[in-house]
């Protein structure tokens, strides 16, 4: 890239190009509403990004080209490598990490802005200083919160809720402290204090850690969506600080997207976002449920399962995160193929929070060539359940637990579930009777029409497929 410096920052030409850029983002997202156009939409958005980057490189005042080249080369290489190597099961971690680096970038930009303000000397205008402070705060929370979410999803730290005594009070003190520091900086803005700004970054970092640490694995889809919204908002704040319209619009679009997903996930769990963030899900009730009495279960082998399935007319597969962990999507598809050969109708019932991020299970099944039309959403499949001959639960747990409907004292009471117990028969493929993310016993396992097939999801699905073929 040749330093041309042909565009004036904030000038008409640069602004016009930024408008082209964010229009392409909006068109790209709009195309994402259907699988047949989504891929093209993604490319359109990428073109929009290229326009935005080239425009910025042509601005007057660009410099330090060596450092720009280093940053682009390292970031581009890491991004490209990761995107090629990541397994579809690992998408939640990857998105968490991307949320994190996005927020981190914003926090660093805000820090740099503060230093720039100090170098210029005099009072930093509030219309620049306030968004800079917001960008630093939100960016730092997002960076550290996302790192914790990543570590949880990657099993680097326990996914169970980690409670710190006095959690709420500490969070409140940190939150108020951050705001107070920000106000102090804004009042004494000639020039703003870098020391206090760094304190803000640190306090926000601790807050990000403490907010995400106590959140259990079941709530990860909400956390990831929320951090996605946070990174978007932080970018918009940076846009205000830098007077950059592309940043404002793009950041706001991402913020809207994350907010919508957060609300949808919370609705799917029948809980408020505040409840998810501050309750430390599954911490206390787990101990009660874990000491539960021994109840009888029906255990079957692959051959019995194959017979039940092969002579059914209508089978629904309920996949959960266990399927993803076991990389069983291809084996399950093979089992479905064998059933379809015998004329059995096979559909897939996808709970909104199946997997660890919104829409995760759909991606995994798409990877295994399951047709888009066979993926049924919860509200679509539940009325059908009484007419289903066999429901096969593979690696799903809490989202099938009838206690959510029947037991008002259950920690998951009121959570919408896939009502598999309404089906004539249920086969649960699972390694043991252990609990899911919510840490509670699943009543489904002990119902009379439920059979447990204790095995690894992938091995069991392959075995059942082979048995069906041999029938």
């Amino acid at each position: 890239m040749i330093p041309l410096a042909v565009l004036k920052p904030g000038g008409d030409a640069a602004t016009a190009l930024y408008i082209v850029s964010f229009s392409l983002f909006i068109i790209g997202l709009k195309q994402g509403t259907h699988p047949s156009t989504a891929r093209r939409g993604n490319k359109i958005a990428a073109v929009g990004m290229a326009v935005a980057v080239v425009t910025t490189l042509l601005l007057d005042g660009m410099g330090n080209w060596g450092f720009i080249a280093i940053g682009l080369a390292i970031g581009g290489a890491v991004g490209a490598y990761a995107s090629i190597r990541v397994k579809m099961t690992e998408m939640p971690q990857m998105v968490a990490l991307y949320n994190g680096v996005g927020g981190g970038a914003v926090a660093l930009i805000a820090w740099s802005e503060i230093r720039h303000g100090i170098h210029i000397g005099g009072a930093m205008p509030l219309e620049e200083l306030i968004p800079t402070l917001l960008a630093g705060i939100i960016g730092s929370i997002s960076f550290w919160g996302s790192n914790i979410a990543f570590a949880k999803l990657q099993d680097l730290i326990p996914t169970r809720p980690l409670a710190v005594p006095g959690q709420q009070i500490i969070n409140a003190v940190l939150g108020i402290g951050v705001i107070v520091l920000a106000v102090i900086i804004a009042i004494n803005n000639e020039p703003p204090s870098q020391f206090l700004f760094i304190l803000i970054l640190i306090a926000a970092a601790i807050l990000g850690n403490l907010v995400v640490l106590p959140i259990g694995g079941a709530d990860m889809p909400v956390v990831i969506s929320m951090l996605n919204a946070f990174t978007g908002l932080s970018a918009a704040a940076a846009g205000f600080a830098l007077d950059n319209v592309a940043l404002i619009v793009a950041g706001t679009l991402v913020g809207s997207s994350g907010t919508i997903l957060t609300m949808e996930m919370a609705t799917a769990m029948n809980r408020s976002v505040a409840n998810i963030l501050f309750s430390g899900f599954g911490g206390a009730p787990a101990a009660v449920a874990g000491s539960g009495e021994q109840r009888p279960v029906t255990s079957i082998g692959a051959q019995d399962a194959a017979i039940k399935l092969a002579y059914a007319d209508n089978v629904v597969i309920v996949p959960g995160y266990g399927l993803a962990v076991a990389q069983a999507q291809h084996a399950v598809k093979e089992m479905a193929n064998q059933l379809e050969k015998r004329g059995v109708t096979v559909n897939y019932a996808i709970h909104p929070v199946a997997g660890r991020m919104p829409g995760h299970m759909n991606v995994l099944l798409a990877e295994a060539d399951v047709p888009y039309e066979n993926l049924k959403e919860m509200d679509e499949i539940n009325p059908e359940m009484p007419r289903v001959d066999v429901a096969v639960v593979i690696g799903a747990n809490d989202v099938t637990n009838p206690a959510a409907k029947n037991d008002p004292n259950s920690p998951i009471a009121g959570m919408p579930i896939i009502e598999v117990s309404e089906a004539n028969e249920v086969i649960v493929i699972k390694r043991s009777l252990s609990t899911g993310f919510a840490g509670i016993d699943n009543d489904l396992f002990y119902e009379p029409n439920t059979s447990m097939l204790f095995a690894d999801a992938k091995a069991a699905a392959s075995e059942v497929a082979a048995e069906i073929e041999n029938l």
Partner: protein
Amino acid sequence: MSLFTEFAIFVLAIFVGFEVISKVPTTLHTPLMSQTNAIHGIVMLGGLIVLGYAGDGLEYLIGTIAVAFGAINIVGGFLVTDRMLGMFAKKPKPKADADGKGGTGK
């Protein structure tokens, strides 16, 4: 641009964002999220701008890391979204029909 003009743009963008994104089906939520990761890479612009007026070692470092983070978002986000959407796109329709000769599907 005045603060209030920017604020008007911000508010309008919120409405556009809600309008467009609420139409994305659940099935495509993961690709949507990784695509918004990529769009969030727009922060790289901020990294470039602050690097433009960086004056000491710390500022070079901060700016370079910000640019690298943004580039990870852009490159990684768009590529992985493309990879995922490719999986939704490849639908062997004729083959599915052949498999379903026994009265499969609705």
